[in-house]
């Protein structure tokens, strides 16, 4: 830095005045830039510390108001908090943060009092706000309310409350993508920058050429987090090496797997991380225009992203000549209508182009000929959000994390029959068991674990015997599952695996774009076969039993052809849920087909209703309620069910006061 560039600071650099200090961002990114006197440096540092909320001067109340939080009632919590502040006249700042990941404990409310550690409270619904806030502000921990605390240097800890790092849900996690989620105000670019945000972009733009950047990402071993696991650096290089007057970067935020919500959470909780990642990727391939393809069902994420883009523009971190590097980037948000297939690259491109979202054959690959015929790199939200932290820690450090072929971390949306549902991020190589049993806290109510479904409609189930499988693209594939986008659904003895397969097949069958025959027609027939297996014991006539037996033979044959011949990833992976359940839970299929029995009692039509003669009081209620007159019996003597007449509606079970009706 030359002497001429040095300048004295004014007071207003953080006042966001227009025009703001032209050196503001650089000053923060390359501290100390332009700051000559120690007083000014201290002033900036203290401002940064204030933004990081190392300590606070006035109490801060954080409300977890991501979509998941709002679903749990955070909007009411927020209202009650504001009301409480108004009524008590307390001076406190209220901040809406994104989801920290522990959805099971929502709504979450954190309080940070001056000099004290930030205390996190759980299940703070509207009715609990007043009581909880009253006690915390009186320096008391509300009974049953405390979840954890975020201790820091010079801060007084709350007694006997676990720290964040000690909490069993968070302790085994390694948060790269979710680093800021739930901690920062997602609508404040200042907070993101204060926590080191945009430094990776700045150093990349300053120190690396495009080729070097691609090489670095190749070295990092980063692979696509959207499902396929294609090496990110390699993808970039294809696009970089294709000459064109215009190139595009597309962020795939078309998160469509049932049970997956990490992209939404990242965008809602830390949108600038995605923007920074996008800027790095766009720079690497030489794209001056980028799209975020996001489903319109994510209104909060879209709003946050819009706000973040606006802020980044005003800080010169997007737009023309970013950080004086000569690099330009404009980001456009394109809302999708929510078709699952639009997550497929070529369908997504068609959708952005205004066409029907249908895949086309590759090659040409989008990196060579993509959006509007130009070289296009499509990366998933999580992939892009890895970049800032990856460059901050260094690609070597990133490459050192994980297994031989899978580096870094992976975010999972943990749901289903597990105590701690939510968003978790673990180092690659972590066992599935650790996620389910330690982080997830295992299956609730002492029920037996049955399987964990990974990868949504493209993935498969991992049975208890393979719980020690590690999170790694290849080893998951080996057991018939798939990394997919990271949905992780835990199932217990109450889940019927045939029904699970049927559910996913129903989903795929409805979401198939209808273009290629094996996917369109094949999934439809597979669904019909699964329906025949799980439904219709009583209405079965004539040939339908034969077709059911024939069906089981056809399931595998169809699955093979659909995998082998489908046009896109959706079709090619569509049979996975069936194949994996057939592989690990074949006996459940056989029980359904041959015995017409569903042990988990999920397949209602397979249930057989009987009346326990010892328990039956002969009240005749069931017989009167039965729509098909299938229950016979004299008054005050045990009744019985005529199976041929029973349609399995279950109304006898509902009305019986003696608990005499059995469904098996």
């Amino acid at each position, binding site marked *: 830095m030359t002497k001429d560039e040095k300048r004295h600071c004014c007071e207003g650099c953080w006042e966001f005045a227009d025009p703001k200090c032209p050196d503001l961002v650089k000053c923060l990114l390359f501290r100390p830039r332009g700051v000559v006197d120690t007083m000014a440096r201290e002033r900036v540092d203290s401002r940064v510390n204030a933004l990081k909320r190392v300590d606070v001067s006035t109490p801060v109340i954080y409300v977890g108001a991501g979509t998941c939080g709002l679903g749990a009632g955070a909007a009411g919590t927020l209202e009650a908090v504001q009301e409480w502040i108004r009524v008590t006249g307390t001076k406190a700042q209220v901040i809406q943060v994104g989801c920290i990941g522990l959805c099971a404990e929502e709504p979450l409310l954190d309080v940070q009092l001056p000099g004290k550690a930030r205390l996190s409270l759980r299940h703070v619904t509207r009715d609990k706000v007043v009581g909880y806030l009253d006690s915390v502000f009186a320096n008391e921990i509300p009974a049953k309310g405390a979840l954890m605390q975020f201790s820091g240097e010079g801060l007084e800890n709350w007694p006997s409350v676990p720290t964040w790092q000690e909490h069993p849900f968070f302790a085994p996690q390694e948060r790269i993508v979710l680093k800021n989620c739930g901690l920062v105000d997602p609508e404040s670019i200042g907070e993101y920058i204060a926590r080191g945000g945009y430094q990776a972009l700045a150093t990349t733009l300053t120190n690396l050429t495009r080729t070097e950047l691609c090489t670095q990402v190749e070295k990092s071993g980063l692979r696509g987090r959207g499902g396929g696991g294609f090496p990110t650096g390699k993808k970039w290089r294809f696009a970089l090496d294709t000459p064109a007057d215009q190139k595009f970067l597309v962020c795939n935020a078309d998160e469509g797997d049932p049970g997956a919500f990490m992209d939404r959470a990242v965008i809602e909780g830390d949108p600038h991380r995605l923007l920074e990642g996008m800027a790095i990727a766009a720079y690497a391939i030489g794209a001056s225009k980028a799209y975020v393809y996001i489903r319109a069902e994510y209104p909060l994420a879209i709003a946050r992203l819009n706000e973040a883009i606006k802020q980044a523009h005003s800080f010169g971190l997007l737009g023309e000549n970013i950080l004086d590097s000569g690099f330009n980037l404009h980001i456009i948000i394109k809302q999708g209508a929510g*078709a699952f*297939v639009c997550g497929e690259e070529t369908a997504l491109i068609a959708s952005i182009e205004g066409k*029907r979202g*249908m895949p*086309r*054959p590759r*090659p040409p690959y989008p990196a060579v000929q993509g959006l509007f015929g130009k070289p296009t790199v499509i990366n998933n939200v999580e992939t892009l959000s890895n970049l800032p932290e990856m460059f901050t820690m260094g690609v070597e450090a990133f490459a050192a994390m994980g297994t031989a072929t899978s580096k870094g971390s992976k975010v999972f949306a943990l749901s289903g029959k597990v105590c701690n549902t939510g968003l978790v991020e673990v180092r690659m190589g972590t066992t599935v068991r650790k996620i389910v049993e330690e982080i997830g806290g295992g299956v609730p109510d002492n029920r037996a674990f049955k399987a964990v479904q990974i990868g949504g409609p493209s993935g498969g189930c991992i049975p208890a015997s393979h719980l020690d499988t590690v999170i790694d693209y290849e080893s998951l594939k080996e057991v018939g599952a798939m990394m997919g986008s990271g949905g992780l659904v835990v199932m217990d003895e109450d889940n019927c695996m045939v029904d699970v397969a049927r559910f996913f097949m129903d989903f795929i*069958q*409805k*979401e*198939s*774009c*209808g*273009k*290629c*025959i*094996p996917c*369109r*027609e*094949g*999934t*439809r*027939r597979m669904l*019909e076969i699964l329906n025949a297996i799980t439904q219709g014991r009583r209405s079965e006539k004539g*040939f339908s039993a034969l*077709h059911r037996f024939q069906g089981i033979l*056809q399931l595998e*044959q*169809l699955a093979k*052809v659909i*995998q*082998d*011949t*489908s*046009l896109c990833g959706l079709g*090619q992976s569509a049979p996975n849920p069936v194949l994996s359940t057939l592989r690990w839970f074949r006996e459940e299929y056989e029980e359904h087909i041959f015995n017409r029995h569903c042990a988990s009692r999920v397949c209602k039509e397979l249930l057989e209703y009987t009346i326990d003669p010892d328990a039956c009081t002969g009240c005749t209620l069931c017989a009167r309620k039965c729509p098909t007159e299938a229950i016979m019996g004299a008054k005050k003597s045990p009744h019985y069910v005529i199976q041929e007449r029973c349609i399995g509606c279950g109304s006898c079970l509902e009305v019986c006061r003696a608990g005499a009706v059995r469904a098996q």
Partner: protein
Amino acid sequence: MIDLMVNNRRVKGEPGEMLLSTLKRAGVHVPTLCHLEGLFPSGACRMCVVEVEGVSGLVPSCAYPVREGLTVFTHSTRAVQARKTIIELLLANHPDDCLYCNRNTHCDLQKLAADYNVRSRQYFGQRTSHNIDMSSPSIVRDPDKCILCGKCVRVCEEVQGVACIDFVGRGSKTTVGTAFEQGLNVSSCVNCGQCIMVCPTGALREHSHIKDVLAALDDPEKKVVVQHAPAISVTVGEELGLKPGTDAFGVLTAALRGMGFDRVFDTGFSADLTVIEEASELVHRIRNGGRLPMITSCSPGWVKFTEEFYPEFMGNISTCKSPQQMMGAIVKSYFAQQEGTEPANIYSVSIMPCVAKKFEASRPEMGSHGTPDVDAVLTTRELVQLLAMRGVDASKLRPERADTPFGDRSTAGKLFGATGGVMEAALRTAHFILTGEEWPKSRIQSLRGMAPRKEAQVKIGGTELGVVVVSGLMEARTLLEEIRQGRDDIHFIEVMTCPGGCIAGGGQPQHSDPEILKARMQALYAIDRDGDVRTAHSNRSVQRLYDEFLGEPLSPESHRLLHTHYVKRNVVL
């Protein structure tokens, strides 16, 4: 050249081509239901999947670029089984009424099922069911028979630039439909019928007029007159067992007469009439500062296309009716007069290589006093059906001459059947009108051939004329856009709706082998080469018509009978 191994045999591929083309050249037949030559592969049907060593799944050969050292197995058990399963899946959702289908015995799906030895229904499940769309005067859509190969959608959008149909719905509910799923008649469909030409099943067919024609033939009160278009005689032979490119004019005339048509006329006659009127109009426009470039009007798909997409160009289109409609108008006026009968007693049938002609004949402008000039339009395919129904054995028939007075044509009129023909015929006559002398050369080579666009600068007398010939509406669209952008060196444009012209029209037999199209085209050129009367204005019968009835070109009587006007159409584009 690229070396690859196909089924353990060395095969040469060309750089940049897809595996399917290589296989075809090497004589390895891999079936496909969705492939369209010259368009970006859609990869929808997956019938052409083959096994490639080192690739985990099967690859679609239509979309797989050849590479040095590829090892391909096209008929491994795995590939064949996959194809068979795909056929079985299609059949599971297909009506089992082949016997009643108009594509029976010449259906691609039926043939594949037979080829792959599908002998029983494999999957018993729900079948998709939709209503048949009979709303269009030209095209009938039966979505139940549709296998969603997408060829119609692509031809409509990418070749014709119309895009009146697209996929609707998702998953197994997907179907092909119009905007807002309204009838084809109120869509932007121009009735070209190229969708029918590429349809592998009976999902698309013409709106048949066979019943009406048979009824008229059986009606003793009716004088049934038939005309057939220039492209018919060089095509229909293929269906009668003759070599492609054979002119079956005489045999066809004999067959039609044998079937009971009272008069057999040649649309070539009215094509000559069109040439004279159109050339006169062109000369008139040039001399009087009329709207230029003038654009031909004989292709009804193109006319509707303009009315929908480019109404500002309606004034550029020649006001001449098409040869079909000129014949129709003359038959119901002059001919009726000659025969001493009421126009209402005449039933006028035309045989056309086109389904848009059915629409054209139904336009309210194309008739007088509520009687249409042309009562029924048969496509080449319907003609073949009719010949079969009437037991006509073409090989035993002796060629006959067409009836007077409208059976004579010049070879210029015959050229109408191929792209560039109208232009060539009109220029010959325009030259005569402008200079009083015959066109010196025997042909205008630069306007011949299958290219979608052909341009030439011709000098007639002292006038330099820029002429352009386009076929296929996408190409027409491109040209109109150029003109919109300010291109002004063109005086006369010929537009044919179908790529290649009427020899490839939407009413022709459904095989699109480019070699056959070339043979048809060459047949027309040969007729022109060997003909005695090579210009429209030297057709004696036409001259007599003017002397006895019309007066002169562009006369009031000509205008009343032979010219028309156009209407802007409000359709969803």
